């Protein structure tokens, strides 16, 4: 023991001055390792273990994606259309209540040929997305503060959760009285619907951050805002993204409620107004078209924007089943 102690002492002394302990001692380890089992052995053993234990990442082929992901929804849609057609052919109800799918298609074509289709969709989508972005800008700091400051959480937490269960249609009448029939009113209704759900998502995401990450961050020297930026927010990202998805759904729903209820020539023609106009014209094919468009646009935005973000976040962390 005495001899081994002195060598250790000497080495530390050198490391103190030289500050290059790593390179220097490689030769040392080579000599000591030569005594019993060569260092080469250990390296080889380790490489073998790594190869045996390494997690295999399987790439999914395009055909598999087609069969597993794309085909089922197509089959489902075809099934619904077929059922619809059968009900129409069986004349279960007069056709002013359930028009032929073909008539809905005709309404769509007509709207397209008049050049109004994209305008109507864009009016609603631009409102929805812009409102969503404002909601995002408000809800993110709000969620952070609610999650991290105990007093604010005790006060605002229950209100935020409660607001989430309040149907946003309920905000339309007060918003009309406060702001009149204009775009501001629409955005207000969107915000009241989307802000609580985005903020709640962030709060839930932060609550689920394993305390171990925060401890590990602290030992690495991350505190306060640095810790929030490098540890807390990235760790809470999956919950936050789930909140964003839900926030978009709430934005879109709130907006449609506002568009259906609030009518004014000052407001451009959006999907909600289109739907309400067709009801006034007793044009059931148009009404169904309106509903389908609202549905399709909502799904499309989720699939095109939010689903890829969520998939990326989850896959990079190994949280998606398909990553294995």
């Amino acid at each position, binding site marked *: 023991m005495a001899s081994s102690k002195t060598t250790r002492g000497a080495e530390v002394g050198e490391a103190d001055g030289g500050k290059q302990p790593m390179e220097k001692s490689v030769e040392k380890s080579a000599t000591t390792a030569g005594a019993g089992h060569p260092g080469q052995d250990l390296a080889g053993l380790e490489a073998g273990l790594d190869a045996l234990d*390494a997690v295999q990442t399987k790439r999914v082929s395009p055909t598999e994606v087609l069969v597993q992901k794309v085909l089922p929804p197509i089959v489902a849609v075809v099934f619904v259309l077929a059922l619809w057609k059968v009900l129409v052919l069986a004349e279960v109800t007069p056709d002013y209540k359930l028009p032929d799918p073909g008539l809905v298609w005709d309404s769509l074509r007509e709207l397209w040929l008049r050049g109004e289709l994209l305008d109507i969709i864009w009016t609603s989508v631009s409102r929805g997305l812009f409102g969503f972005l404002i909601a995002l800008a408000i809800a993110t700091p709000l969620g952070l503060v609610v999650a991290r400051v105990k007093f604010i959480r005790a006060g605002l937490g229950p209100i935020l959760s409660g607001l989430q269960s309040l149907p946003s249609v309920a905000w339309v009448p007060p918003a009309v009285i406060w702001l009149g029939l204009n775009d501001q009113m629409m955005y207000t209704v969107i915000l009241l619907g989307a802000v609580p759900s985005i903020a709640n998502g962030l709060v839930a995401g932060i609550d689920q951050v394993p305390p171990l990450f925060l*401890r590990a961050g602290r030992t690495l020297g991350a505190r306060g805002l640095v810790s929030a930026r*490098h540890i807390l927010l990235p760790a809470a990202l999956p919950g936050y993204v789930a909140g964003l998805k839900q926030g978009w759904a709430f934005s879109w729903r709130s907006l449609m409620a506002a568009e259906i209820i609030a009518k004014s020539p000052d407001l451009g023609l959006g999907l909600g107004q289109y739907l309400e106009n067709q009801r006034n014209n007793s044009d059931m094919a148009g009404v169904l078209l309106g509903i389908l468009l609202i549905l399709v646009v909502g799904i499309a935005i989720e699939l095109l924007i939010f689903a890829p973000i969520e998939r990326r976040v989850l896959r990079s962390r190994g949280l998606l089943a398909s990553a294995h």
Partner: protein
Amino acid sequence: MSPALTTEKDDRASAAAGSPGSAGAAGSVSIAHVHKAFGRPGAAQPVLEDINLRVRPGEFVCILGASGCGKSTLLNLIADLDEPSSGAIEVPAGRPALMFQEHALFPWLTAGKNIELALRLRGVPRADRRPRAERLLELVRLSGAHGKRVHELSGGMRQRVALARALAQDSRVLLMDEPFAALDAITRDVLHEELTRIWSETGVSVLFVTHNVREAVRLAERVVLLSSRPGRIVREWEVDIPQPRRIEDAAVADLSVEITEELRGEIRRHGQQ
């Protein structure tokens, strides 16, 4: 608990400033009369009682004990994640590196970026981070793993990346809290060898907590046995077996038997109370 023993947290600062009066030489850890209790004052449960320990620069010390001996609490105190109820802890300038039983790597970063984050939080300039991270990965023999995601690595590889991240702090002291407890026996054996090699290459002081007697004897220059509830230092052994050792060595087994007897005696005491 004596009220005369006051917390002397400021010692860290003075040690950092190189005050000549401080007891700890550069690179050593010194723990003097440390008590730690949890709970309300009055009804506080003592977890650590009068811990006195010095880790010399470059020394490898294993702290051994059954559950409830406050091993992890002691490491948290040294790592400044918690405050002692009384007593003084001195560590070398800079924050001690700490490695956990769970790898605690951040899953949103690649293996290399985990190490680079540690370098960044330490203030290493951007241009230096990548090459340094590569060198550290080389040190733990994971040269090709820079771009690998945490979930793509095996348990042993994760702990090696965690070790590299801890070493990135360039601390004179490495605290390890049962870092290999969750690994299979083959991998653990290899990592023992790896840790011994890296310890002798870097000259870092290691304070290694475990409940595995053989692991302690396999690795340490000195084994410290803690009693449970509250944790108190019961006995110390200098391990005279020359490195490189193997966990199967007869000398390792002999000392392990002796230490295990003592540990069992400690545990039995709790059944009699």
